[in-house]
């Protein structure tokens, strides 16, 4: 008979067909429940704070601060997305999206948002990366658009602006 449980605990569960889950593996997924209006556009650096938590195993993510704190040392994967806009102006010529970890800072996107959106629509960008983290290390993301007035929104509802991560190894 196939073993379907780790004899000592249930941190690894194996289905009868062999599918493996790690119910206690640190991981999280959070999204903006609503849009944050007029967040940037004038050079204001926004710390993204997805406030609706889909799951938060290990309680590493804080919706209040937008900061993930590694509950355990290891290599983590992160997947993030940002939807912004309600229309860009032609003067909005620079967008910079970063993930700031204790160990290093990742530049996730650096582009001309007006050209990407052509001023007509919202725009969504997506990024994934691995980070080496010691227990207690943190990671958060920042988003800034420059060149115009403070009229650029961070768009919410559904999974338009989200942040997620998982301890891999």
């Amino acid at each position, binding site marked *: 008979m196939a073993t379907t449980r780790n004899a*000592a605990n249930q941190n690894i569960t194996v289905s009868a067909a062999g*599918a493996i889950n790690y119910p206690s593996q640190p991981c999280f997924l959070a999204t903006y429940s609503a849009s944050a209006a007029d967040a940037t556009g004038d050079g204001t650096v926004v710390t993204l704070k997805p406030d609706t938590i889909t799951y938060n195993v290990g309680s590493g993510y804080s919706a209040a601060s937008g900061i993930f704190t590694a509950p355990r040392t290891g290599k983590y994967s992160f*997947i993030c997305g940002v939807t912004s806009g309600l229309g860009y102006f032609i003067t909005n010529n620079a967008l910079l999206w970063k993930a700031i970890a204790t160990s290093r800072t990742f530049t996730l996107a650096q582009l001309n948002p007006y050209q*990407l959106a052509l001023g007509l*629509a919202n725009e969504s960008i997506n990024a994934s990366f691995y980070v080496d983290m010691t227990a207690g290390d943190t990671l958060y993301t920042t988003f800034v658009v420059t060149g115009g007035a403070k009229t650029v929104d961070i768009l919410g509802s559904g999974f338009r602006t989200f942040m997620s991560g998982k301890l891999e190894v």
Partner: protein
Amino acid sequence: MATRNSENSYITIGAANEINYPVQPSFMAYLGAQVADVTGDATAYTVLCDQVVWDQAPTPSYTAATGIFAAPVAGRYHFSCGITMSSIGATTIYFMSLVTTGGTYSLFQCSPSVIAVGGVLTVTGSAYVNMAAGNTAKLVITCSGTTKTVDIEGQATDPITWFSGMLAC
């Protein structure tokens, strides 16, 4: 602490202690040839990746005919995908989304005509998705601003449009 599964091969550990999960639910498929005139007029087109490289699950979980992945067990899944489209023409809005039972992820949204190269544009995206057994996910592209003249590009040997996923934890 158990480091080996003694009764089956759902977890295999190599001589150098590297670990595989040979029957972990996962799949990877790509589009084998161009599909012409699928969107451009705001049609939401589900990408049908017909070349299945692997579909490693107790039972096939990805259906090439529908482009739909159905989760064989509950858990958090990691999806990665990319779309190459052509004949962009006057398309003003491009929206690549991962449509799941639990919500729609905005993976990439832009005005493609400006940033395309020779009328061709490739973008990629990733997401973690919380799924119950039987929940589904599919890759959808929606272009608007022109007529139904936008193509999705595929190649027989190399993935330039693809959809993949695996049970992460």
